[in-house]
């Protein structure tokens, strides 16, 4: 019987695990409590694996530079962008955004960019953190 894996696993025991311990280096008694503390600034998270340059994370919108041309709405595949007629500006629902950054490409004023931020999970898809306007 050839079992090449046995050698492999013995070698692995003495190596460092590949896991990146996130969000804490050691399992806290309650992850929810821990994250609350992080929010309050009482604890720090063990950072996630770093993102490369030009990563497409949460969208950033410079409202004042926008000219309300609507091109972004025309190419958004997910209908995540809404036009606000009063101010001729847009509102982006991050929960519906698919992070294709097509709106960034088409924007004539360059007011839309992608930030490296990707820890966006929340319960409420219309929470303050999920709306960019």
């Amino acid at each position: 019987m050839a079992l090449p894996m046995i050698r492999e696993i013995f070698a692995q025991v003495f190596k460092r695990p590949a896991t990146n311990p996130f969000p804490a280096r050691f399992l806290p008694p309650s992850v929810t409590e821990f994250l609350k503390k992080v929010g309050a600034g009482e604890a720090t998270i063990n950072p996630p694996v770093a993102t490369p340059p030009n990563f497409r994370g949460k969208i950033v919108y410079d409202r004042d530079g926008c000219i309300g041309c609507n091109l972004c709405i025309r190419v958004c595949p997910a209908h995540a962008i809404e036009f606000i007629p009063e101010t001729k500006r847009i509102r982006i629902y991050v929960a519906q955004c698919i992070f294709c950054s097509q709106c960034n490409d088409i924007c004539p004023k360059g007011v839309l960019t992608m930030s490296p931020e990707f820890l966006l999970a929340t319960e409420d898809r219309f929470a303050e953190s999920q709306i960019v306007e």
Partner: protein
Amino acid sequence: MSEGTPTKKAPYVVPIGPIHPALKEPVQFLFDMEGEVVKKADFAPGQAHRGIEWMGMRRNPIQIIHMTDRICGICGVTHSFAFARAIEQIVDIEVPAHAEYIRVIIAEFERIQSHLLWAGVAAHELGFDTLFYLAWRVREEAMDVIEYITGNRVNYGLIQVGGVRRDITPEQHPTIQKCLDGYRDLLGKMLNLFLKDTTIAIRCKDCGLLSFEEARNLCTVGPTARASGVPKDVRVDYPYSAYGDLDISPILPTAYGGDINGDVYDRIVVRLLEVAQSVEIIETCLKEMPEGPILWEPKLPKLLSACKKAQGEAVGRHEAPRGECLHYVAMDGHEAPAMWKVKASSYSNLHSWIPMLEGEQLADVPIIVASIDPCLSCTDRVAVIRGAKRDLMTKEDLHQLSVEKTRRIQGC
């Protein structure tokens, strides 16, 4: 089976799916069993049909390009590649050669990560979780490079009608090369762990057989067809994109020295060797990449209006990790295509399940099902079937039920 122990010969039905740990995707199987042997197999796909074609026929090509990224969770470039090729034929766009090479590089990285992902899933189906973790760990390297080039790990968003959206600059070459070197070193180890392991061999050899005729007549594609000896590889047969410039040949199980049996083992061989082939292709492409622009038309409004004017029909094909992927598109002077038909690679392969499964042991069902690397779709809400009644439950409903239940338990 409250009537007691079924005797060895009594046929009984084992349902597997739509949701089952053996299936990573929703599909329902019904097996007529005799003891441990599958007598008759039937399956029903479409448990979570999303109507993507329907959605696409109400969007413009630039929007669809990003929707195609999301047809499959693993093939982030396959569908956009095939779709873009179809549109480019209708609009008569000449894609810069530089962009074609970048497309091929990403497509091959995708093949590497997809085959490694499959290898992990296959190992898991065999109850070999260690190999599953190992395969997925090394897959990360390819994912990281893909993220480095395109900006995202899964939905690359790289392809644009008429080219690609991001360049591969000379500064990026060392990182890519490092990853490729890593894979070249690793491949011997993977082949050893998968193909020399006795437990894998006894589980996979002569299991899930698909003969040459069956593979050809059932129109299978990709590694499933090649493992049965059908030398079908769009990259080789049909010169498209930068593949026409490359000197490659389809990988058959004979490349590992064995005969062609068309069993699960052969499918492992083909996929693992294709990883090596992909590494070669990427290296060649990096070396021979011509200079030039990356887009036919960088101004998107212009591109959109060019698409709107176009009329006609075309098919775009690409050899995805799972086999031929084909998009049929018809444009009739509107912004949205008049017809868009997506033929994903698994669509052609699912039929081969029936001849593979019948006569096999129940224990081999997961690995056989996984061996064609099925890729269906993964979004659905919970469907509750009680008797003849069938309704959908949303997250709110489920949450409400959990709250009620917790209260009930705490109460007593």
